[in-house]
């Protein structure tokens, strides 16, 4: 019974249902605040998808992700507020800048393996934070950046309203997920997974480790920059705290709860946790008392997160049900099976 219910989720049509739900969400939401929270969650989800590329698919724990998010926000904020750029050119510049800095950092840091890479990126994240906080001539220091431009609507829409902005974020989220979907099925995505599963083996197959890792890193920082720029455009006030290491840890939690290395995991994890935290407002400051042990329990018992565990369970069930039923279900399981195998 549960299995049948599960196959429902794996049908190709599910994503269109979800998209439709997301589109009508502002109409069924009780108030504007809920739309606002949803838009924030979508922005974080984009950042989480970025981390998923380098950490989930490529297996390198990048602890500077929040820093690149902040670089995206600051690039947009400073260009519009201090240099009088319009939103869209600044938006593009913010994304390109995150990609370029991603290339620079990646080219240096990805020469390092495992622990060294994690520690190096932890330090990079901290350097970004310190620069934003101390380099007052450029970043205004702890005061932060005010008067950030809202997205220009070309006279058609007013993006200072919550609902139009929600749709804007939704468009970028759908694009982001679509791209990841394409990526994970492409040769490049499989190359990333091969690197994660064993970089020496991957290298012996003729994969250029450095080039692919740097590419994954650039993609992930681009996502982070995109999310950061959207965030700055929505909040329109940012400070050095955007680069706080806790943001990186939040992103890791979202990714891990949802399911590392899966396509739907980042969305499930982010939406789930953001809404749970929202409904438990008093938790805001102390949420880590619950999330900290949650992270530990997850990596010990459910290292694949909600989506990963679900896919594994479905895979096992479909094996148990025998060949007769399997043929019937085969329409929906291949992708799930593949994902479960990839994660094994």
């Amino acid at each position, binding site marked *: 019974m549960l299995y049948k219910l599960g196959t429902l989720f794996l049908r190709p049509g599910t994503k269109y249902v979800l998209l439709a739900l997301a589109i009508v969400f502002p109409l069924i939401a009780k108030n504007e605040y809920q739309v606002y929270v949803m838009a924030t969650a979508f922005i974080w989800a984009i950042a989480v998808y970025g981390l998923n590329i380098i950490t989930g698919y490529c*297996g390198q724990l990048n602890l500077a992700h929040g820093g690149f998010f902040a670089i995206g926000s600051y690039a947009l904020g400073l260009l519009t507020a201090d240099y009088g750029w319009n939103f869209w050119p600044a938006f593009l510049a913010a994304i390109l800048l995150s990609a370029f800095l991603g290339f620079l950092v990646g080219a240096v840091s990805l020469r390092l393996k495992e*622990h060294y890479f994690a520690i190096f990126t932890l330090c990079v994240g901290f*350097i970004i934070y310190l620069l934003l906080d101390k380099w007052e001539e450029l970043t205004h220091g702890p005061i932060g950046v005010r008067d950030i431009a809202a997205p220009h609507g070309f006279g058609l829409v007013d993006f200072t309203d919550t609902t139009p902005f929600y749709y804007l974020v939704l468009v970028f989220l759908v694009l982001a997920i679509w791209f990841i979907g394409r990526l994970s099925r492409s040769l490049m995505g499989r190359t990333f997974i091969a690197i994660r599963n064993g970089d020496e083996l991957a290298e012996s197959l003729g994969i250029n480790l450095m080039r692919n890792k740097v590419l994954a890193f650039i993609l992930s920082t681009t996502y982070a920059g995109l999310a950061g720029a959207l965030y700055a455009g929505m909040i329109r006030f940012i400070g050095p705290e955007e680069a706080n290491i806790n943001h990186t840890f939040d992103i890791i939690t979202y990714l891990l709860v949802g399911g590392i290395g899966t396509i739907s995991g980042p969305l499930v994890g982010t939406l789930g946790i953001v809404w749970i935290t929202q409904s438990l407002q008093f938790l805001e400051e*102390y949420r880590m008392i619950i999330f900290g042990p949650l992270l530990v329990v997850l990596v010990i018992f459910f290292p694949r997160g909600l989506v990963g565990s679900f896919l594994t369970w479905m895979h096992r069930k479909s094996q148990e049900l025998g060949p007769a039923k399997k043929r019937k279900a085969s329409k929906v399981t291949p992708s799930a099976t593949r994902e479960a195998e990839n994660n094994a």
Partner: protein
Amino acid sequence: MNLFFQQVINGLTLGSIYGLVALGLTLVYGILHIPNFAHGALYMVGAFMTYTLMIDLGSPYWTAMAGSAIIVATLGILLERLVFYPLRHSPPIHHKIAAIGVLLFLEATVQLFWGADFRRIASPYNGILRFDGLIIPEQRLLIICGAITLLIGLQYFLRKTMTGATIIAMAQNRDGAFLVGIDSNRVAMMTFGISGALAAIAASLYAPINLVYPSMGNLVIMKAFVIIILGGMGSIPGAILGGMIIGFAEAFGGFYFASAYKDLISFGLLVIILSVRPQGLFAKGAH
């Protein structure tokens, strides 16, 4: 010239503290190959334990420090048992994430009970020694002497006692250690205990000239990581030497260049070193 010697004292003080924290980190890394991101949280808990024992329970400085070392050592052992032991067969990325989880938990818990305010620990040694115009606060001298004593004690323990030798053996060759019948659980617990105690002592020594607050460990742990990368992960002399390098770089850099950017110095150093030598400065062979 006096100003120069003043900076030497500052460098020695910072270097001693960083060295002690890095030593705990490098011991754990040498034995279990875990970069323990939660080590900074242990350091922070150590400071808060000393604070509570001294201010709320009124115990003397040294007793408070010993109590705090015991509490944090126990905490370290618990961590090994509850978190890292179950993960021993997992891919390395899981250890790091779990360690981050522990770090977040400890920080939030301390904040819940003690609040986010900055606190001070008053040291009984707040006098000042003068040598020919050179001013040395007693607490700084205490830090330097304390660190040296601990280092000698630890060296003695590791090199001359049987229990210490098991730790070294495990760090040198895991399988070889198993072959001669070394109990890996005991060694792992002991290493976490020692590492926690070192963190607590470093925090208690440093707290009187610094402040105590829930996120105090973050900067220290990151510098400790820089240090053990400098000194080669798992190397004990490397940790001490690296600690001194960073301590001096900060004392002199902060004094002669820009004090606002003094925290950047160590990270900038790391970036440069890792760009040139990805395996660290003094690393012998790959770990």
